[in-house]
């Protein structure tokens, strides 16, 4: 079964428009996990967090995955504009893509399901922009 968050990460790492805006945190500043890495520091630049949050498998074509993925951009305190720029770059390169073949599978389609929602983290004050994508994927 394909991991849609991993596929999106692979896709975004190939997009120079996105990676140019990200910081120098570990692993390319794109993380497929419900929490951020222990030593993540937004002062080193913004990061993208990808979390699967719902969806299901296709009834008949069992290898197809229909997933909902939360795409969250983190930036330092008050860096809303920077977070918004990263969100925009992601949207430009992900919303509407079809048939993207990657090492771990194929993104058959990706559409933004819920638009940008800004928030400040209640503990750290870091700026965040949330969006959700409906992604259909299958293995290679």
């Amino acid at each position, binding site marked *: 079964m394909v991991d849609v968050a991993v596929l999106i990460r692979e896709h975004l790492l190939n997009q120079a428009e996105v990676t140019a805006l990200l910081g120098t945190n570990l692993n390319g500043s794109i993380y497929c996990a*419900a929490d951020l890495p222990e030593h993540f520091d937004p002062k080193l630049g913004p990061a993208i967090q990808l*979390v699967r949050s719902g969806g299901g498998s296709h009834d008949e074509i069992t290898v197809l995955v229909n997933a909902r993925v939360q795409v969250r951009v*983190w930036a330092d305190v008050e860096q809303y504009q920077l977070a918004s720029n990263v969100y925009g770059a992601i949207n430009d390169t992900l919303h509407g893509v079809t048939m993207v073949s990657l090492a771990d599978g194929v993104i058959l389609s990706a559409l933004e399901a819920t638009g940008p929602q800004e928030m400040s983290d209640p*503990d750290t004050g870091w700026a965040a922009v949330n969006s959700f994508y409906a992604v259909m994927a299958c293995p290679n």
Partner: protein
Amino acid sequence: MARLKSANTVSATATLKLDTTAALGYVNEALFEATQEVVGFDTVATAKELCPVLPKPTKEREPGELRGSIDASVKRNAKGVRASITTKTGYGGFVELGTTKTPAEPYLWPAFEQNIGKLVPAIQENIANLTGKGN
């Protein structure tokens, strides 16, 4: 001849308009009732089932506070019907989306996802009931 043709056309248009208005009224009413049923009741009930509850009270929060605050509003507007599900505790969004310290525990969107499929059948049923074809 020309006058007759013109009169017929006007008459036909007027009759059609009346039927369309009545049909739209039924559809709008059915849509409103179905949305109330599916979003206002079913989705709220599912969200309350899925909503995480604190195991014990803290200084700031009581167990079940977030769950108890989940509510829906269904309103008519110029474009049709608009429904929204909200919480009133002030931190419902942090629970749904997660923060740097706590992972997301979605309870609103999954509730919507589980119930939205019922909307079209509910509209069909309400139209049938309103037009007297449901018996």
